[in-house]
């Protein structure tokens, strides 16, 4: 049995021993190094580009927009983002020119001899500025995309409400901060282009390069190298860097390597969308929600890129794991003159999770009610209906995760103990520093739709296959990438389980578009649940073919495959490997492909944006215990207890790793991480000043995996990758609220923000 076991990771040995090859480890004959020359203004136009005459340009390859053979855009949702600016500049660090040279010294020197002059225009740098429309930078109103979803009668709901509670919440940008920065090598050929690099989605790049050079499917080959993390940051952006490298390679007719250093990577590549989210909730005195109106605005940055899809996940998750019969949710994504925001683990959901959970805290406080009780009254359970009108018919672990987290963290007793200790604190007269510290405990409860939103999966029809190799072992053919999360390991477990083989017998083909089919992008918590399912179906087909073959060969109709052997009752006929080899010898090959089909129960209406937004949801609850220094505003997270329903843990250790890693990333979101902007440029684009939590900042974590099987996932599995990043920020803010009485409606909870909030409580009390 392979599923449910903590087998050794498939990619572990190479990574641990340093044998794994990342893109920057590769040097090719005749290769040039590329560099991007970027704008140094947020908005305006290019007046002139001058090249110092004294410099020897003969050794430098220069490409600008005129060198683009196809159209000058990055193929994504809308084709509004130019690959290289022609005239107008819409954000700081926008690519204008590309240069390449045989060594990096020459490259740096050349960069110093290019002078670009601009005419500066007044930039739009915040959500408020964009909505105020003083400058129009997109369409007629600066709005990229709108959604309106809802059900019931909101006015009627508010009329029934005994209390109406309003809240406004603000969430910041967040940088993915994968360890390996973005990088790509482009190798030109005769009517061909090969790209190898760090990426999540080889087929996105495949599509972008085909369009750019008017090449066909076979002429473009995209190969994923060992990738040092992605977190969404290597979903859409690698298409840009690949196109840039390819342009230079095309012009130079030599391979070109383009690798960003950390400063460039943080300055220029997409971040999590910042947002402002307003809630207006009508409740009855007993806590039951009767009306909910939510308005959310995300800052998309300068170009559309993936923003509409992020917004769509945001709007669908905006009400959280709660039931309310009368709901109206308005969502807008606006344009600013900042680098485009894009995919980041969670994809719109962590933003709204902070808002809906803080709103629950606020409602509870205003009703004088326990917030856990409030959650229990309003939570979604099996059979309930969500804001899009989806009835939850399967795999609903909401009660289980809430109960587990609360029990394991001893939440109620601790909450009581802390609230009593606060009321008994006197102004201390001892010399004891500790007297200034206060403890608090807080809870968050959340869900995450697994797979693409709406009809995305039905349209995508993800493909994957299995082929039998010459040695009779199976090899998985899939475009899903390993980015540290465990794709290779879990795929081998799924196949091993299905074919009753040892997992070490299963090989995973390199994600290379000339060798693997399009399994869709490695995003949206879909790799295990969706692609894993397709891999399982392909394995089943291999099995069926071999069973049929063996049955005929041995004239034994009742053959079964058990523990790697074909059996009739208790008698072994032959083992898997032997029969698989024989099949391949006889028929030339054994390859089976399967593609994803949505469960027939699932229905989504794209026009009305209603119905089954996701085939299934993963559920989470998290308890944070914090200690706050009331004089220095230092917040220490003492303990985090997380319970998550992920259907089935194919590899429990990897799943727990996803949960702990995502949780710590969310601790950063809640407490530390903040990009600092100055006139449209990021000024803390260094690891020393964009601060993220390290091991010493990591609290004790307890992780509980709940398994409410999903009938259409492989062995019951659903998504786990993104769910954990939703929980920590609101749980910590709720704990800080209990500890200090200060209600933080904006993250990160930095010392200066906490000081302002605590001072507000103190002045309010004295009034």
């Amino acid at each position, binding site marked *: 049995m392979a599923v449910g076991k903590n087998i050794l990771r498939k990619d572990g040995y190479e990574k641990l021993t340093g044998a794994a090859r990342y893109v920057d480890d590769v040097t090719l004959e005749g290769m040039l190094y590329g560099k991007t020359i970027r704008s140094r203004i947020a908005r305006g136009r290019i007046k002139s580009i001058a090249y110092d005459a004294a410099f020897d340009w003969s050794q430098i390859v220069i490409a600008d927009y005129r060198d683009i053979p196809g159209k000058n855009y990055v193929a994504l949702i809308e084709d509004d983002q130019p690959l290289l600016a022609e005239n107008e500049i819409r954000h700081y660090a926008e690519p204008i020119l590309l240069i390449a040279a045989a060594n990096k010294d020459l490259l740096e020197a050349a960069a110093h001899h290019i002078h670009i002059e601009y005419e500066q225009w007044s930039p739009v740098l915040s959500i408020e500025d964009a909505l105020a429309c003083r400058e129009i930078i997109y369409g007629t109103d600066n709005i990229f995309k709108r959604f309106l979803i809802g059900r019931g009668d909101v006015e009627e709901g508010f009329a029934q409400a005994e209390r109406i509670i309003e809240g406004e919440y603000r969430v910041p940008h967040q940088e993915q901060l994968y360890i390996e920065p973005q990088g790509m090598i482009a190798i030109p050929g005769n009517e061909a282009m090969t790209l190898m690099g760090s990426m999540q989605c080889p087929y996105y790049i495949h599509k972008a390069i085909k369009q750019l050079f008017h090449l066909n499917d076979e002429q473009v080959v995209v190969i994923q190298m060992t990738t040092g993390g992605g977190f969404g940051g290597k979903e859409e952006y690698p298409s840009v860097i690949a196109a840039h490298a390819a342009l230079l390679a095309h012009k130079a007719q030599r391979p070109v390597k383009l690798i960003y250093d950390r400063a460039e990577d943080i300055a220029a590549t997409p971040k999590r969308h910042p947002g402002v989210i307003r809630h207006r909730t009508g409740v009855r005195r007993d806590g039951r929600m009767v009306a909910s109106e939510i308005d959310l605005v995300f800052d998309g940055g300068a170009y559309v890129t993936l923003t509409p899809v992020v917004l769509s996940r945001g709007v669908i998750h905006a009400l959280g794991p709660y039931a309310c019969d009368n709901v109206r949710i308005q969502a807008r994504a606006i344009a600013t003159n900042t680098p485009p925001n894009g995919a980041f683990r969670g994809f719109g959901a962590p933003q709204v999770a902070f808002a809906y959970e803080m709103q629950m805290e606020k409602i509870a406080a205003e009703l004088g009610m326990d917030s856990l009780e409030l959650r229990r009254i309003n939570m979604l359970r099996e059979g309930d209906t969500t804001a899009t009108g989806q009835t939850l018919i399967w795999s609903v672990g909401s009660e289980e995760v809430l109960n587990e987290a609360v029990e394991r963290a001893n939440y109620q007793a601790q909450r009581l103990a802390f609230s009593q200790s606060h009321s008994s604190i006197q102004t201390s007269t001892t*010399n004891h520093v500790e007297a200034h510290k206060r403890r608090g405990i807080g809870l968050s409860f959340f869900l995450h739709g697994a797979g693409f939103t709406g009809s995305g999966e039905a349209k995508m029809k993800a493909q994957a296959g299995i082929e039998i190799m010459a040695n009779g072992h199976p090899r998985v053919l899939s475009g899903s990438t390993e980015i540290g999360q465990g794709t290779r390991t879990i795929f081998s477990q799924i196949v091993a389980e299905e074919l009753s083989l040892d997992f070490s017998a299963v090989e995973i083909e390199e994600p290379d578009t000339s060798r693997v089919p399009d399994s869709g992008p490695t995003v949206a918590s879909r790799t295990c649940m969706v692609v894993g399912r397709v891999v399982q179906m392909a394995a089943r087909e291999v099995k069926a073919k071999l069973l049929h073959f063996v049955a005929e060969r041995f004239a034994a109709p009742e053959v079964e495959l058990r523990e790697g052997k074909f059996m009739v009752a208790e008698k072994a006929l032959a083992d898997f490997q032997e029969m698989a080899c024989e099949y391949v010898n006889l028929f030339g090959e054994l390859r089976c492909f399967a593609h994803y089909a949505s469960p027939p129960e699932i229905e989504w209406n794209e026009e009305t944006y209603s119905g089954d937004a996701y085939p299934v949801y993963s559920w989470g609850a998290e308890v944070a215990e914090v200690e706050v220094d009331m004089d*220095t505003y230092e917040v220490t997270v003492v303990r985090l207890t997380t319970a998550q329903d992920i259907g089935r843990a194919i590899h429990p250790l990897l799943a727990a790793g996803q949960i702990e890693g995502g949780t710590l990333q969310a601790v950063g979101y809640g407490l530390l991480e903040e990009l600092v902007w100055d006139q449209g440029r990021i000024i803390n684009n260094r690891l020393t000043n964009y601060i993220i939590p390290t091991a010493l900042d990591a609290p004790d974590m307890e992780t509980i995996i709940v398994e409410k099987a999903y009938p259409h996932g492989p062995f019951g599995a659903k998504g786990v990758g993104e769910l954990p990043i939703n929980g920590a920020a609101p749980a910590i803010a709720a704990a800080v609220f209990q500890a200090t009485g200060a209600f933080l409606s904006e993250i990160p909870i930095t010392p200066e923000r906490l000081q302002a909030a605590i001072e507000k409580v103190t002045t309010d009390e004295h009034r």
Partner: protein
Amino acid sequence: MNAFEYASPTTKEQAVKLLGNSWTEAEVLAGGTDLLSLMKDHIVEPKRLVNIKSIKELGGIAGTAKSGLRIGALVTIQELLDHPRMRKEYAALVQAAEGISSPQIRNMGTIGGDLCQRPRCWYYRAGFGLLGTQESGEPLVPNGDNRYHAILGNSGAALFVNPSSLAPALIAMNARVKIYGAKGQREVALEKFFTAPTTGSQREYDLQPNELVTEIIVPPLARAKSATYEVRQKEALDWPLTTASVVLTMTGNTVKAARIVLGHVAPTPWRSTEAEAAIVGKAVSEATAEAAGKAAVEKAKALSKNGYKIQLAKVAVKRAILLAAKGGTR
């Protein structure tokens, strides 16, 4: 990083000859934990690196309880922490050194490098010059994001804070630095070593381009009580928001003499004679320590976004005093 020449002299005389007459010619390389990142980011672009790690006489800690300490400039942060006499006699220095995490930085970073490390001001680190100015010369810090910038000594052009946590502790201990250069040997009080530059081409410390810090001399302290208190946003791989180091000479619970120095609040380590005056002659209590903290920030002036640091500095001074009086252990 630009190409550079690399020299590895074995004596300080050779080293000084290899250093140039201007800052653009050469830089001293000790542990490299700061210098290399400055070079990668093109903030400093020396033509030559003079590695001083092969100069034996710049290493080692020596001295007796009577004579005080001589700490070689190349002594690493970890060596400081491991030295048997440190913890008992120089608690404030040990506590400051302990704040410098990670182990890698403690093992590579030297005391000389800690004192000469360049400011962390993000405008400076993003390429806008030491004083953080637009190409037009317009200063960026006053209207920009100055949440970590100076609250004291901030009436001049320099608004960054001195990044060293060891400097305040050493100044509180009345340490001196020995400097060797083309013109020979000189010695200055560490308190006078740091300066607030008025132009972007100056340095934040009193060194000529062809001078080296060779050692730090710390007077005997066995009978004083000392402590450093740090306020931090994050536990590792980050600088403190504020620190205070205090050295108290006490009779019973009464302070006879005090030296109180704040870190990360001003362009130089900030000695607060106001806080010293407030605590001298008093018995240490919550109230007197608080009063000293208040006195320390009496003249503080917030920029647009760093008002909260005034409170942090006040609390750091108060807690450092209480900690020192208690005997230095938390």
